[in-house]
């Protein structure tokens, strides 16, 4: 094992494991980890493109004026879109993030190449299998595949392969944490980004176990070996997979926020204990939220519904609200230290908005918080769910969490992953600078259209709403917004994929030199050099005002929904 000694900026030396030292950051990069980060990221982007094309077709079908696909292909493409976007794109990307966060920040090598190959091979085989079954028309069961709907056995087997493959990748992450600690590649506590990834990994294990518990009997039933599992039992356990997997995304996304805030503005976490406690709250309470999908189901009592949907006491929501403060606050402090001290928001207006790493991350934060967070808590309120369940309000909510939030954060991350890990400088940099705005703006418009159409009762996953004869021009206008927002977001997605692929093929190599800077916040000449403390009230006043505005919006939306509920027929 050839090791090199690396000297850090502050003069301390540390041992570097086989690999290279990054010329931009001075951190070590393990060559095995680098290879698998590349493989998983490339697979992720391929599935993103498949899911993206599907998204465009769906948006153009729900837009009643265009109504592109026929019913058969509409439902087929909904299934394809859900699985490729929510499962494959996200999981491959998360495995890449896990491999990065357990090696470079800890100065460690990846535990095992063989395990990484096994994981990647199983995930890829499973994902391709599922897509083939869907295209052959043998899996028109939606992503949720609710029993007694039944798909070809290869559909379930493919999902099991993806789930187990991901679990094996997660094992590689844990094993790497262990050997890093054993070999003392770092001293003290692990860095915050790794800690966030660890929280995501723990939730992923619980999530994927639910997947195994529900998918194995369903696969066995589809083979004719065992009787049909109870459909209510299926819903209960499936959402342990379906909802929790989205919380893995939340954790991974928040870890990306901290990472991107650091590299684009030099932000440092204000209080590590607060940030880490918030991650622990996710691990402890987020699994209860699977109940969000069962709030108007038969056979489950009000006590169970209320307790679980409230995450014990909204403690996982508290965690998100904490991150929603600490991330922008760390940016504010960093910017003020650089001399951008004018007014409440001078730090924000002077931020590097032309850097897609920054704009993507900050838009992700805003869209996730104001859009996804507020709607999620409201729709997940036990009684309010009566006026929301299975309407377009639900996809309206999760398109601003998992797309405007997670996917946009992962895209922003890619603007650093490709130069730093693939060692290629981006081509088409002007396009890259507008891409986050296009994608974030499009998806926000789409989600607004969905939410309002859903408020008017338009169902999700429905090919045609005119047969019912109850939806007026306003609902059709909102579906038009879905169509146009979908086109804009798809354009943003396509630019992203083309830039990534183009850069891998034609980008200038960054080997042995620093990546070309996207534009980070520079210190104003004559700025005071002293570090601002968290005790300094002027240091975070802008963020504090922003969070108060957020809380006001939250309260208005939440109570407006109680009012809307009070207007419908009494029911118990």
């Amino acid at each position, binding site marked *: 094992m050839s090791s090199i000694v690396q000297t850090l900026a502050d003069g301390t030396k540390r041992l570097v494991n086989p690999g290279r030292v990054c010329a931009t950051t001075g951190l070590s990069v393990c060559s095995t980890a680098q290879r698998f980060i590349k493989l998983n990221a490339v697979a992720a982007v391929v599935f993103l493109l498949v899911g993206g094309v599907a998204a465009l077709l769906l948006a153009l079908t729900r837009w009643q004026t265009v109504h592109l696909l026929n019913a058969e292909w509409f439902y087929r493409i909904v299934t394809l879109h859900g699985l490729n976007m929510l499962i494959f794109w996200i999981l491959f990307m998360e495995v890449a993030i896990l491999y990065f966060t357990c090696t470079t920040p800890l100065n460690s090598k990846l535990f095992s190449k063989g395990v990484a190959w096994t994981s990647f091979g199983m995930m890829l085989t499973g994902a391709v299998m599922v897509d083939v079954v869907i295209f052959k028309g043998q899996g028109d069961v939606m992503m949720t595949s609710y029993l007694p709907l039944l798909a070809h056995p290869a559909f379930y087997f493919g999902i099991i392969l993806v789930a187990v493959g991901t679990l094996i990748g997660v094992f590689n992450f844990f094993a790497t944490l262990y050997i890093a600690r054993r070999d003392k590649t770092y001293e003290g506590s692990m860095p915050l980004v790794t800690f966030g990834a660890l929280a995501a990994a723990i939730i992923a294990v619980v999530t994927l176990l639910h997947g195994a518990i529900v998918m194995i009997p369903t696969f066995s039933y589809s083979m004719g070996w065992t009787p049909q599992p109870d459909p209510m039992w299926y819903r209960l356990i499936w959402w342990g997979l379906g909802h929790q997997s989205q919380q893995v995304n939340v954790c991974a996304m928040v870890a990306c926020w901290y990472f991107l*805030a650091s590299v684009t503005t030099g932000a440092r976490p204000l209080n590590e204990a607060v940030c880490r406690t918030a991650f622990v709250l996710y691990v402890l309470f987020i699994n209860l939220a699977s109940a969000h999908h069962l709030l108007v189901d038969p*056979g489950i009592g009000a006590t169970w519904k209320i307790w679980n949907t409230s995450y014990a006491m909204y403690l996982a929501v508290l965690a998100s609200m904490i991150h929603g403060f600490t991330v922008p606050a760390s940016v504010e402090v960093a910017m003020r230290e650089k001399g951008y001290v004018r007014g409440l928001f001078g730090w924000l207006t002077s931020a590097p908005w032309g850097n897609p790493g920054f704009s993507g991350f900050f838009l992700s934060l805003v869209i996730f918080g104001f859009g996804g967070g507020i709607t999620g808590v409201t729709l997940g309120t036990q009684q309010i769910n*009566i006026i929301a369940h299975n309407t377009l309000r639900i996809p309206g909510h999760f398109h601003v969490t998992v797309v405007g939030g997670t996917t946009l954060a992962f895209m922003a991350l890619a603007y650093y992953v490709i130069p730093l890990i693939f060692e290629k400088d981006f081509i088409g940099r002007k396009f890259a600078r507008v891409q986050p705005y296009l994608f974030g703006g499009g998806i926000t418009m789409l989600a607004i259209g969905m939410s309002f159409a859903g408020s008017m009762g338009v169902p999700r996953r*429905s090919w045609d*709403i005119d*047969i019912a004869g109850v939806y007026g021009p306003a609902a059709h206008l909102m579906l038009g917004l879905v169509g146009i927002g979908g086109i804009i977001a798809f354009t943003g997605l396509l630019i992203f994929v083309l830039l990534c692929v183009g850069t891998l093929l034609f980008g200038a190599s960054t080997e042995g030199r620093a990546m070309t800077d996207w534009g980070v916040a520079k210190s104003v000449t004559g700025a005071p050099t002293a570090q601002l403390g968290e005790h300094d009230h002027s240091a*975070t006043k802008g963020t504090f005002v922003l*969070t108060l505005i957020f809380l006001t919006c939250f309260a208005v939306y939440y109570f407006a929904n109680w009012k809307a509920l009070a207007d419908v027929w009494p029911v118990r």
Partner: protein
Amino acid sequence: MSSLLVPARGWFRAPSGHERTWIGLALCWCLVLTLMMPFWHFRGKQNSRGEAYLVTPAGFQARVDKFIAATKVGEQNGIPVVSPAPGGDAYVLARMWSWSPILKLRQGETYRVHLSSLDLQHGFSLQPLNMNFQVMPGYDHVLTLTPTSKGTFTIVCNEFCGIGHSTMIGKIIVE
């Protein structure tokens, strides 16, 4: 780069300043969110208690047939129209791709509406009110419902149930 680096020793400390104020505010808001649901459960008029009984599809079909025979007052497009007794039981049966029978209810009266499916899962979505409940095969889902407005209301299926899903339309009439 600091979130990628090992934190300096002594990082575990209590929050202070705006951060502490915000955590306090957020925690209070979480308490409000938590208390609203039990409050509405006891004081509010719209709740989903999930009252349900196990039933076989054939058993539910038999009860629906009996119910239709006893309360039938007419027919619309081949679907029976029934007028259940106020305060009594009413049945709506979901199957690919229809809702049956058509209920004729009286404004201000309370009914125990039984929902179940003969085949797949379906979604009972009452429009334009936008009230939504899950319909499961094997479960007799009972809604104790009080129509407070007059008119013809449409039941839309909002749980995917195959190629004819969007054509699965039913009706409730309130007089």
